[in-house]
């Protein structure tokens, strides 16, 4: 018995060590091969500068869109019970299991020049493929399910009695949403948003299919790294290190920003009814 238990402990520790090492090693390898000086030097490279700007800009816009359109949808799916609700939830989650290349094809088939909405957009003089808007759409498409899924769970976790209490205390549905549902779901929304952000910043497949890889227009950092990889491995490595640092910093600040709780209010005006 004692021997068996000892053996089990050894196995668990060994498996954990392998798993940890496997996750840490590639990232450690990048930073071991890239001196900090090189990392900063990359920022002066015009290709890297352009790619960083495109990445940040498209990801930021995509996140705003995800929050603005995804939050109401998640709230609706969490708070209403209706026929076909589970079908809708599955549809929302579907892009998660779609290979990014297929997602790119889908976007082309929908918004491309010969796509479903292509001619409609054309009459308004809009052409989406291979523009920066296409990058934003690709990022939003692949990243939004991560946020919406988490947001549904977060809204569902809010005690329905609290919502009912708000209503019986004279608050309408809008005030109840902003004073009760939203603040109480905040932690879950922040976690979902952080996930969507991380997925969006690393987006590659759908973007290259739908938006291409033009420096300064649609070439995001992951696309630039892929192109650089064919030319100079060390330089690609340095760009990779930069992406890791930028992602980590942004992820951390998003988490802090969205889960930030207002400090204890003592003045009644801070919670004054809006009516």
């Amino acid at each position, binding site marked *: 018995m004692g021997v068996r238990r000892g053996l089990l402990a050894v196995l668990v520790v060994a498996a954990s060590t392998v798993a940890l090492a496997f996750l840490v090693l590639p990232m450690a390898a990048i930073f071991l091969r890239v001196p900090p000086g090189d990392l900063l030097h990359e920022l002066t490279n015009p290709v890297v500068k352009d790619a960083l700007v495109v990445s940040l800009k498209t990801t930021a816009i995509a996140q705003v869109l995800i929050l603005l359109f995804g939050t109401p949808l998640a709230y609706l799916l969490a708070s209403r019970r209706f026929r076909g609700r589970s079908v809708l939830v599955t549809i929302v989650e579907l892009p998660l299991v779609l290979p990014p290349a297929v997602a790119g094809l889908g976007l082309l088939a929908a918004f491309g020049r010969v796509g479903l909405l292509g001619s409609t957009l054309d009459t308004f003089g809009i052409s989406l493929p291979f523009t920066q808007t296409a990058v934003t759409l690709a990022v939003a498409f692949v990243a939004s399910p991560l946020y919406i899924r988490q947001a549904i769970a977060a809204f569902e976790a809010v005690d329905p009695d609290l919502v009912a*209490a708000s209503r*019986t205390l004279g608050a309408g549905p809008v005030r109840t949403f902003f004073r009760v549902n939203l603040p109480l779901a905040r932690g879950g929304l922040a976690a979902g948003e952080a996930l969507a952000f991380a997925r969006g910043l690393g987006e590659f497949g759908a973007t290259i299919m739908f938006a291409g890889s033009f420096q300064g227009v649609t070439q995001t950092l992951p696309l630039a790294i892929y192109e650089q990889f064919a030319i100079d491995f060390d330089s690609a490595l340095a760009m990779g290190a930069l992406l890791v640092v930028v992602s980590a910093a942004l992820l951390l600040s998003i988490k802090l920003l969205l889960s930030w709780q207002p400090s*204890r209010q003592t003045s009644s005006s801070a*919670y004054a009814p809006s009516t």
Partner: protein
Amino acid sequence: MATLSADFELRLRSFDLRLALEVERTVALVGPSGAGKSSVLRVIAGLARPEAGRVALDDEVWLDVGDSVFRTPDERRVGLVFQEYALFPHMSVRANVAYGGKERVDELLERFRISHLADARPPELSGGERQRVALARALARNPGVLLLDEPLSALDTHTKHGVRLELQELLQAFDLPTLVVTHDYEDAVALADTVGVIVHGALRQLGTPGELVSQPNDPFVASFTGANLLRGHALGVDNGLTKVRLENGEVVYSIDPGEGEVGVVVYPWDVSVGRIHADDSAMNLVRGEIASVVHIGNRVRVRIGPLTAEVTEASSARLELERGGSAIASFKATGTRLVPLSGAGVPTGSAAAGADLLAQPAPLEPEPAARARRR
């Protein structure tokens, strides 16, 4: 005072809830869990939408299915206190109260003795404190009717007695039509002057506590509403037992501690009935005239002085119990519970606390006290 009238039909998962009720003072609905009690409050508050019916506060119609009137909860002047209080965990006590209405916040914090907790968050409060915050918040909205869902069930037995006493006094002071639902008959009797027994979505009987104990409509009401509640004054401790002088002058003993004005709670099936004085010092004895004899199935409820006893049909026949005769009721000190009663504010001889009704013979029960009527 305003009158809340509710008459509706709501389809629940396994049965239909049908209820017709008028609330002018304090009415308690009592029944086992799953009887549909909370749904009654949800319908009145506008949180549930019945298939048919009407809910109105005086001539202010909140719901009339026939007329397609449905006011949302925020358009009804209700103060609903949830079973678990439903305080907003992300707001301070002050913000919780102010959520219902800003004008009277300080006054309410003061009145409910929670001013010192104004900046605390609900998770930091005790059960009794949470209830006071929930009440203050409900009243901040200036409701026309107060609804309490199991107001005492979230509390542990230790704090429950004190909070019940407090709640009694508050309800009397509010001067609002109040509907309380509870699964605990003792709580119902302590808080309300009219009690309705609700089982499986149907109101079985509505009446004063005295009526329910002495003249139950059916066996369920009889078994559920059991307890006698006699009003008395604790005299001190004797031999480890609390000595209580009842209003009719008799002295009884209880194993429960108590002081001041107390309610003596005895279940009818714990009371034995005899014709002659059996000399047993361990027994509490109450002598009196037989005020009523009511047959329920194979059992008989006999009202002796202030007390109702339940005996078998056979022993009732053997003892030849009939109205106008005299008998001696006896019950053990161990089967005698004591509950605190608010001394001040409970007018003796009126229906206010319910307890007084029980302390009087059934025929003297003031009929107008049944302010909530069955329709």
